[in-house]
């Protein structure tokens, strides 16, 4: 007898609901040991609305078709030496940040979703997480392949896996994901699935993908298109988990709110680097960070939180603080990287006069008053042959691990600093948001691997900064780091373009 051909709906039911176990002789709680310790109450997993409804065979088919197109374009990109079409070699430094800072996060997302894909009691949620896990692993691979072409022609790419566990600013991104993955499975999904993928993702995607399009980087644009349908599924998973948790039990509401407050704050701190990229690193600008924040958070996110109000969820706790900070953070962050340019694995530079004028126009309340004078001074020093590098290690925030580079919003030239005491030691923070996160779980954050402290404990080689950069970070000194002006990247570009 010929096997009956199943339709998609039947296949999906068999893949999920019918594939689950009945726990007739084993203890169900022992099978899902992570499900209760966070305090979340699930009364009925069957109420989970599957966001993807993809079966494995259709998943393979879709993804294989996308891969085929993607790799055809990568091949063409490579054969045509299409790196020569980017707007300006400074642009490539944004891609270096992508590979060293973001691609490893995709890998951590893969690991995190694989873990949650095992730990949920509901089979629909498990399958959805497993699918996302596969997507994330695929994103790692396609990003590496998209950028491997640039690695042949530009510095700063080749040690990205080694750098991830060592370099001071990469610890910001790494520890963000470590924090999420060492929470329970529900916190992980609210952190990554909802707060990051749903609420903040456009603020990563738009600058990198539109930035790539505006700057002639077709490899990254093509990767972006290929990932876009995956991202849409991930966003629906992020929203589903929030609605599911809130509908399951009223006791879940304050826990979910606490996680939204935490991860929205953690996420927006992480995006400081995207802010500086938008305002300083893209030679052809897409929009300012401030405009991006207004469009993608204040408008879109505002509507979302209005919708969630019926569950008793309010706006993230520090949304008002971030609204004020949008005038400042890109300038403060790029100034930090510029002044520590010897310790950055990409090139930094002073904005051109035209760019300074663009910044004045986009930031009429703050740029000329607080930030233009810094660049004027940096220009003066550079003209005297004394390009400014800060040689002393900065104080870091225990939670976000970013140097204390942010200022008080009612006094923008005064460093913001908060402090907490735990078991006889002091801990320092950049903000109320980071202090709150620490005080909720100090036993977790006393373990922060703070790069500056690790250097001072003698765990990163040395003794001096040059040895640490060269041997521990594996920077090729003078090629991977320092100013764009005078770099081998710049010299090669001029040679290719026949410019003196």
């Amino acid at each position, binding site marked *: 007898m010929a096997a009956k051909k199943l339709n998609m709906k039947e296949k999906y039911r068999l893949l999920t609901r019918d594939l689950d176990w009945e726990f007739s002789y084993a203890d169900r709680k022992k099978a899902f*040991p*992570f499900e209760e*310790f*966070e*305090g979340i109450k699930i009364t009925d997993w069957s109420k989970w609305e599957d966001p993807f409804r993809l079966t494995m065979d259709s998943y393979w088919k879709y993804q294989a078709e996308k891969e085929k197109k993607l790799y055809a374009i990568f091949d063409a990109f490579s054969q045509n030496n299409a790196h020569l079409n980017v707007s300006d070699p400074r642009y490539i430094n944004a891609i270096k940040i992508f590979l060293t800072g973001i691609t490893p996060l995709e890998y951590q997302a893969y690991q995190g979703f694989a873990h949650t894909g095992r730990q949920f009691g509901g089979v629909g949620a498990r399958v959805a997480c497993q699918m996302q896990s596969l997507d994330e692993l695929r994103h790692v691979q396609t990003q590496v392949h998209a950028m491997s072409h640039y690695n042949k022609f530009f510095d700063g790419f080749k040690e990205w896996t080694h750098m991830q566990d060592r370099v001071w600013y990469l610890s910001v991104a790494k520890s963000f994901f470590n924090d999420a993955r060492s*929470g*329970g499975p529900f*916190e992980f999904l609210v952190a990554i699935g909802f707060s990051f993928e749903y609420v903040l993702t456009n603020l990563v995607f738009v600058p990198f993908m539109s930035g790539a399009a505006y700057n002639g980087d077709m490899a990254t644009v093509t990767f972006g298109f290929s990932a876009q349908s995956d991202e849409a599924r991930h966003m629906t998973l992020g929203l589903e988990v929030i609605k599911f948790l809130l509908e399951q039990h009223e006791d879940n509401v304050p826990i979910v709110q606490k996680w939204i407050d935490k991860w929205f704050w953690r996420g927006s701190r992480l995006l400081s680097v995207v802010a500086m990229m938008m305002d300083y690193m893209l030679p052809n600008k897409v929009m300012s960070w401030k405009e991006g924040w207004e469009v993608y958070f204040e408008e879109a996110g505002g509507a979302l939180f209005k919708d969630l109000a019926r569950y008793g969820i309010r706006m993230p706790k520090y949304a008002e603080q971030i609204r004020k900070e949008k005038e400042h953070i890109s300038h*403060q962050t790029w*100034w*930090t990287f510029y*002044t*520590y340019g010897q310790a950055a694995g990409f090139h930094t530079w002073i904005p051109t006069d035209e760019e300074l004028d663009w910044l004045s126009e986009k930031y009429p309340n703050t740029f000329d*008053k*607080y930030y233009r*004078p*810094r660049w*004027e*001074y940096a220009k003066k020093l550079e003209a005297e042959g004394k390009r*400014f590098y*800060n*040689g*002393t*290690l*900065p*104080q*870091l925030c225990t939670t976000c691990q970013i*140097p*204390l*580079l942010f*200022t008080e919003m009612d006094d*923008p*030239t*005064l*460093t913001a*600093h908060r*402090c907490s005491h735990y*078991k006889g*030691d*002091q*801990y*320092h923070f950049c903000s109320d948001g980071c202090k709150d996160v620490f005080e*909720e*779980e*100090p*036993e*977790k*954050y*006393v*373990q*922060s*691997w*703070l790069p*500056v*402290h690790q250097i*001072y*404990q*003698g765990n990163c080689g040395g003794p001096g900064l040059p040895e640490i950069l060269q041997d521990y970070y594996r920077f090729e000194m003078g090629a991977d780091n320092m100013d764009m002006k005078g770099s081998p990247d710049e010299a090669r570009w001029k040679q290719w373009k026949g410019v003196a």
Partner: protein
Amino acid sequence: MPVYALKPDYTGEIKDRVENFHGNQLVYIGWDHHLLFSSPFSLLAPIGMRFDVFFKEIVSNAFSQHPEWDQIDWSSVTWLLDGQPFIPQPEVSLGDQGINHKSFLRFQTPGLTGIAGAGI
């Protein structure tokens, strides 16, 4: 709650306890309204070091690139140690005047408004 963990008695390893710094301690220091240095500094100093030595050998070195550093009138400078008003005693060791591991010193220099008067 100090942590949400599977094990009820979970504790974390304190990564930055003073014992891990081989006889030294961390001292943070910031010059208010002078953001040429984008954030305060982390400095390493022997616990028993006198304040005047710490200042001359470590602090000055960190800040001396700033063009206003040499113009500071130290008699008018005000200090905060861990948020409280503080007067450093040059001949006393750091620890004996309450500058402990991970203490935060910040100082204000009245009349000096930073490069271009912009808090730089």
